[in-house]
């Protein structure tokens, strides 16, 4: 087990270093970092001095090591556009994205699991067929289109919910939250449904097929034969066993929720990291781009690592097959 953990951590570090190399190359070779700090009147000596102060004359390996060292201390340089430290800009917007991601994951779980359980228990009922059709549409519609349709229905036509922005935000010092006010929760509803719909359909389909599989197994038949109530069989015995893959998939999907937040945040003008990243892409603001890339990669790799380790803890077969490879 220890060897497995160490090897997985080693792989994770390797992936992170690769991503760091990519964002370093972005930072160093795409465009000249001094270009943004100088004007036309800057003399050549001043330019050379700036290059020297920034350490751009050092060998590339040393520059890369310094880049990694700085990144480990959350120092990503200064944004070309806003002239503010990138770490501060990201820190300001981090809570907005995290709350959106959390709300969508909760929506996906608490809507997806009951729908999947129902569709798995009664696969031929009309409601289950409706769920299947909805899930097909949910997989086919692009995220931004779902957002626009929701805005069209709930904001423009019926005027029930706010269509953009993050309102009713309470500042807690280190964190800003929209969960504490009614306004804040209302403005969170449409974006989190938009972001979570794809995950919800995924979870629903997964729970449905797992339920249908588990209900055919011997231990469920035996539980029925013992005369347990359908309620106990379905929820105590069957559902419990379907939840392991669901938890794994949800964990892995957290990463793509954060990535797809870029689109949702654009549609709803939600002031999160994704919107900032998109603006950085449009204005070629390299420090923000490379910092965002590193941050998201770290989140992805951490989530993958935790899920893998949890899985190995639960399922010994993975440990064994890992040893052979």
């Amino acid at each position, binding site marked *: 087990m220890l060897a497995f953990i160490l090897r997985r951590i080693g792989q994770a570090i390797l992936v992170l270093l*690769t991503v760091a190399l990519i964002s370093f190359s972005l930072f160093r070779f795409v465009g000249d970092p001094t270009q943004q700090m100088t004007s036309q009147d800057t003399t050549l000596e001043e330019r050379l001095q700036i290059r020297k102060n920034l350490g751009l004359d050092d060998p590339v390996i040393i520059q890369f090591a310094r880049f990694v060292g700085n990144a480990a201390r959350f120092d990503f340089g200064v944004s070309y556009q806003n002239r503010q430290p990138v770490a501060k800009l990201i820190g300001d917007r981090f809570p907005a994205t995290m709350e959106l991601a959390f709300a969508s994951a909760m929506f996906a779980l608490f809507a997806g699991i009951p729908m999947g359980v129902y569709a798995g228990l009664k696969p031929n009922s009309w409601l289950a067929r409706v769920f299947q059709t909805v899930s097909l549409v949910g997989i086919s519609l692009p995220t931004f*289109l779902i957002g626009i349709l929701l805005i*069209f229905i709930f904001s423009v036509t019926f005027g029930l919910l706010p269509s953009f922005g993050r309102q009713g935000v309470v500042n807690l010092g280190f964190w800003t939250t929209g969960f504490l006010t009614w306004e804040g929760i209302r403005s969170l509803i449409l974006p989190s449904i938009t972001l979570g719909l794809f995950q919800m359909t995924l979870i629903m389909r997964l729970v449905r097929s797992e339920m249908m599989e588990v209900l055919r197994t011997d231990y469920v038949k035996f539980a029925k034969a013992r005369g347990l109530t359908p309620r106990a069989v379905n929820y105590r015995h069957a559902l419990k066993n379907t939840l392991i893959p669901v938890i794994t998939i949800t964990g892995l999907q957290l990463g793509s929720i954060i990535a797809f937040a870029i689109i949702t945040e654009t549609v709803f003008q939600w002031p999160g990291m994704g919107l900032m990243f998109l603006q950085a892409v449009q204005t070629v603001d390299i420090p923000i781009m490379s910092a965002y890339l590193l941050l998201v990669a770290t989140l992805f790799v951490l989530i993958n690592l935790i899920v893998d380790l949890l899985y190995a803890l639960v399922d010994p077969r993975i440990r064994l097959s890992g040893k052979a490879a």
Partner: protein
Amino acid sequence: MSDSPASATGKPEPSRSMLARMRDSDIWHSFTRSWITMIAALVTFILIFSAIFAHQIAPNDPFNLASLSLLDGGKPPFWSPDGEWRFPLGTDQQGRCVLSSILFGMRISLIVGFLGVVLAAVIGITLGLVSGYLGGTVDSVIMRIADVQLTFPAILIALLIDGTMRALVGTARSEVLVFWVLVVSIGLSFWVQYARTVRGSTMVERNKEYVQAARLIGLGRVTILFRHVLPNVIGPVLVIITINMALAIITEATLSFLGVGLPPTEPSLGTLIRIGNEFLFSGEWWVVIFPGLTLAALVLAINLLGDWLRDALNPKLR
């Protein structure tokens, strides 16, 4: 690939036309059994047909500035009292016909999606063949890159490549350049799946006798890979291409919607939705809803066709 008995025995049967052979095949049979698939095929065919012949079908020319009139701006679809038959689905603020814009936009979306998928398939198949045939260090390097890339969603990769290429070529870019930047972004985001599939089947084919024979008579590696191994591993790739086509169209539309894709002067469906989205609150819903529905119908139809193709070509489900 062929399912007809004629090709299995290898005897030429001049009396039976290709059409008759196709009608006898399993694929055709499973196609006619599922009415959802037939509707999906019909929708796909109509949409692709009208995109190809957009010049002939479109009632108006949305790009000809001389024929546009601001007086025609903001007209609703034909069934509402202010609507006109001249503009069946209404017009936007500049008086551009929504239906015509959709036809031309769909054409661009389809071209970008198709070229992107072809590029992804070419990169993926080549790397998969090389990786599976050579093995060793080359194989592990290519597969590690694939692993790292698989950790990230394709849309993020496409955004990053797009951003990097913008930085490299500068922000003052021509429309042609933007077009190819999009194609390359999509191509580089989707190659992994092809590489993995082809690598797997190449590793099986590598040890078969015909490959050894080809090696014995002194054929070069490139000839062996592309003339002899490729035809035997291409089957599953065709299914991935169909499913990826829908994904590529969504990716292009998303990038254009986010404002890093095609510009308003050469709008794809995604660009049309982005422009129309700004008028959603002024009550002109048709400018955004119709391109959106077209995109949804196109993607849904192609997805259904891909699902069917996957099941029809899967020998385990027969």
